Structure formats: C-alpha cells, structure tokens
C-alpha cells in the first residue's frame, strides 16, 4: 500500500515539476501563472487589463486572417444553399415587398411623429449617426454568441453602443479596443433586453438561448392568453441601454408551453452577418445648451449687435423695396390715367369735329334754301350745276354767285 502511494506521489511530482529537455518552464510554474492571471482578471487588475487590450487588437486581426479559408468554405456552403432555394425565396420576397411598399408610407409618417414626441418627452435632442462596420471574427461558440467588428474607440464606439443589421437590433458593444470591438448578440445567454410586445404594449425582458433564437425571460403580468404569432417585439428603451422602438423579432407561441418558454424569432439571421451598423449617438441636453450660452455671453452679445445691425439694414432695405413698389404702382396708375384722359380728349375732339361739320352743313342747308334755285341747273338756267356736286355746293355757299 505504501509503495503504491509512493509511486503516485512520485508520478504527480514528476508530472508537475519535471522538465523534459526542451521544455523551458515546468507545468507547475505555468499553472500558477494562469491561476494568478484568472484571479487578477477577476479583480480587474490593471496590468491584466492592459495585457488583454494589447492582445485583443493583435489576436482579432490574426483570427480574421486565419479564419479566411474557413470563411471562404462557409460562404461557399451558404451560397450553394441559397442557390437551391433561390426561386422560392424570390417569390416570397416579391410578396413581402408588395406588402412592405404599402406599409412604407404610413411608417414614414409615424416615424416623424415619433421623433417629435420623443424629443418632447426626453427633453433632449439626439442626433444619431450609423456607421458601417465589418465583422472580422464571428466565432459563435456554444458558450458565447459574440462577434468582433472593425470599429473601436477611434470611431467613437462606446460600451453599450447599439448594433444593427439593416434596421433590426442585433446586440450591443461589450468590449471596446482602439480599432475593434466585441458585440454581444441578442442570442447570447447573458443578453437581457427590455422589450415591448406589440400591439398590446406588454412589457417584457427577452434573453438569448445560446442558439439562434431568444426567449421571454420575464413578463409583466399574465398576458399569455393575449399573445399570438402575430405579435411583434421591439425594444422598449427601459434602462437606457437600448434605444426604444427598434424592431427585434416575432413571437413564436406554443399553446402547450408556459409563457416563460415562449421563444422569439429574431428578424436578423445572426449566422449570416457580414456587415453591421453601429449607432453613434450624441445627446445635447437643453440645460447644457443654456450653460453653453452663458459661457459664450460676450461673443453672443457682439453677435447680437451685428445681428441687430443686419436686421435694421434689412428692414430699411425692405422699406425701400416697399416704397419702390408703391411708386411703381403709382406710376402705373398715373400712366393709366393719362391714357384714359388721352382717350377722352380724342373723343371730345372727335365730337368737336363732328359739331363743326354739322355747323357747316347747317349753313349750307340754310343757304341752299335761299340760293339753291340760282345754282341748280334747269332749262332756264343752263349755267347752273347738278345737285349734289361739289360745284353746286360751292355755288350755294357763294350765295348763288357762279364763278
């Protein structure tokens, strides 16, 4: 018995301490180092933190390069799979597209309304900017569903930054390096997202299952009878980690299962991600804005004076313009008046002319009565003129005297 125990101790000692010819370190020393690293990383020790940050950048890039052949094989596999279902997908997509088109207009209006209301409620104006990021590592092990993207603190990515596939929420940033970041996907076991189940507006928390779907972890109240396959899930924004109103997925119900086991089918397929969008949000509180205003008071007052000056000049210009306009209008009126008067004068002249003509005619008729017989050509008066001729008229006006 004693010999057996001695053999065991010798074997253990040998295993821990003996270094073979080419081994530089004994297993015991390396084991102690790794245990101390684990303890120090658990205590957030600075050296370990910096060591990890330093290694992250190198390892992520190396992992991307090393994964290239496998990724190529993987993509080829998926492409072949896609080709086999291409026609059916096309038909399905066409149907969906028609549906989406009809919903698009009303959605746009709702979005604008939402934006306005959110600004009113939150008391801040948020401006978001989505930047495109490439996935460099997507090793989704059964224990952790995460991806590495090629954007980091250099691109204003922060811990908690929301990550999207198109407009669907897929996760948040949990680790930021200078040029890379790790994104925890919604399908991870450690992911918890406060959501709203529409259209009933039921508040719940969903978590990942470690596979490609999620499940309801907590639901406020007993609403199991109200839920159906048509329910859609979007982020509620509770807690401030995720932005509100971002579509996440659809509810998959099973009548036999209790509410807690209801699964969530995500809109985005996490196994097919190549590029994602990271949302950079900049907030400006109204209070902060006021503070900034007081700090820049002098500049503001100067600007105000200049603005006033500009305003006065603009007002004067405006008045001149108005005056010009009124003068132009007056000129036009006067011109019209003149033309009217001219017309009137012309008419009066015509009248006068007419009157003058009538007077002459009257004189002719009067003389014609008296002297007409002297000028008319008759049997006895052969030197007379024919009536209605010019000579006759002249004769009458000359009081019957024939030249």
């Amino acid at each position, binding site marked *: 018995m004693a010999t057996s125990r001695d053999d065991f101790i010798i074997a253990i000692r040998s295993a821990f301490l003996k270094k073979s010819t080419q081994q530089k370190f004994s297993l015991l020393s390396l*084991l102690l180092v790794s245990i101390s690293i684990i303890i120090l990383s658990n205590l957030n020790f600075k050296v370990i933190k910096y060591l990890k940050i330093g290694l992250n950048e190198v390892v992520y890039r190396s992992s991307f390069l090393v994964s290239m052949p496998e990724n190529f094989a993987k993509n080829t596999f998926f492409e072949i799979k896609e080709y086999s279902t291409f026609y059916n997908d096309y038909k399905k997509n066409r149907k969906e597209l028609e549906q989406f088109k009809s919903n698009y207009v009303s959605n746009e209006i709702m979005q604008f309304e939402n934006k306005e209301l959110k600004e009113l409620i939150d008391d801040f104006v948020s401006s978001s900017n989505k930047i495109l990021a490439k996935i460099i590592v997507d090793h989704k092990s059964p224990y952790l569903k995460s991806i590495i993207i090629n954007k980091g603190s250099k691109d204003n990515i922060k811990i908690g930054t929301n990550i999207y596939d198109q407009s669907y929420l897929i996760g948040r940033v949990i680790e930021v390096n200078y040029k890379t970041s790790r994104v925890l996907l919604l399908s991870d076991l450690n992911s918890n997202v406060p959501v709203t189940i529409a259209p009933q507006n039921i508040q719940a928390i969903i978590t990942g299952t470690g596979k490609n779907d999620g499940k309801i972890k907590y639901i406020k109240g007993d609403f199991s009878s109200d839920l159906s396959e048509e329910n859609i899930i979007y982020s509620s924004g509770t807690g401030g980690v995720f932005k509100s109103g971002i579509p996440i997925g659809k509810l998959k119900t099973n009548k036999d299962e209790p509410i807690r086991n209801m699964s969530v089918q995500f809109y985005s397929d996490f196994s097919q991600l190549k590029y994602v969008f990271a949302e950079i949000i900049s907030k400006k509180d109204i209070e902060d804005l006021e503070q900034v205003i007081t700090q820049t008071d002098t500049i503001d007052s100067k600007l105000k004076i200049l603005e006033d000056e500009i305003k006065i000049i603009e007002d004067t210009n405006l008045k001149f313009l108005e005056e010009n306009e009124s003068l132009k209008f007056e000129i036009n009126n006067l011109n019209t008046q003149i033309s009217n008067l001219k017309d009137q004068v012309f008419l009066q002249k015509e009248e006068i002319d007419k009157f003058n003509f009538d007077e002459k005619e009257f004189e002719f008729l009067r003389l014609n009565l008296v002297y007409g017989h002297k000028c008319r050509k008759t049997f006895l008066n052969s030197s007379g003129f024919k009536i209605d001729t010019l000579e006759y008229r002249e004769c009458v006006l000359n009081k019957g005297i024939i030249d």
Partner: protein
Amino acid sequence: MNVIKTNNYFFKIYSFLPIILLFLSVLNEFDLNYLNLKYFSFNFPFILIFFFTLKDLKKFDYLLVFIAGLLNDIVVSLPLGMSSLSYLLICIATSYFRNITIRPSGIKDWFYFLFVISLINSINYSILSLFFSYELILAYYLVNTFFTFVFYIIFVSIFKLYLKGLND
C-alpha cells in the same frame, strides 16, 4: 519523408506542425458550428494537446500551449487564463498518465481522455458560473465533451500517421 528531411526548412515546419495547428485552431475556433447542427460542437485543441503531450513530442512546448490558451480566451471572450488553465491541466494529466503507464494502449488512452476532458469541463463550468457569473447551459458542455471524445479516435489515427512520418 527523406525528401522532406533533406530539405531542412520543410522538416522544421513539419516538426512544428502540431503547434502550428494548435495556434490556427485557437485563432480560428474550428468547430463546424456554422453547420447549425443542434448542440453539435467539439474541442479540437483538447484532442491535439492531449495526444501530443501524451506522446511527449519535444516541439510541443508547454509555454506555447499556455500562450495558445491565452489567445483562445481572447477569441472566445473567456476570462484571461481560463483556457490556459484547462490546457495545462491536460498537460499535467498526460504527464502523470505517461509516468504511470507501463504498456500504452489506445483504448486506455481514449477513456482516460474522456475522464480528463470531463474533469476539465467541470472545473471550467464551475469557475465560470461561480466566480464570473456566466450563464451557461450544462447540456452544451456534456454534448461538447461527448463529441470531443468521439472525434478523438478519428484524429488520433491521423496524428499517428503524422508521427510515423516524423520518425521515419
């Protein structure tokens, strides 16, 4: 093989092939997860480390195994040092097993491998859930252990061919 041996450069690469494979596998996390087979996963570095440390391959340096563990932790986002600890525990187990074995047998190695990876996965699970509050599914660990155990015999036959080539 003589051709390889005459070319010193290629022979060096060939002799370092297991360690190169270890680094590639930790960086690439080659586990066929994208096939989306339910629960399917296996741990290739475990098989690699167990086999070559058991066979006491000189180029398979413990320090490099330790570094590979650190890289694996970064790739799969585990607490730094966790994988190194697992890999080194395999090294200790194989070293002990080598010392006590008089007549090596493939079947014995295989079942000893099952015992070792079960023990290490249990330690892993306990540390992650107790000290780091990770939410983990035990079924995944069990399935992973099972498939790693099954795949061991397949990979061992390939590794033996490699060793034969190296010794020739």
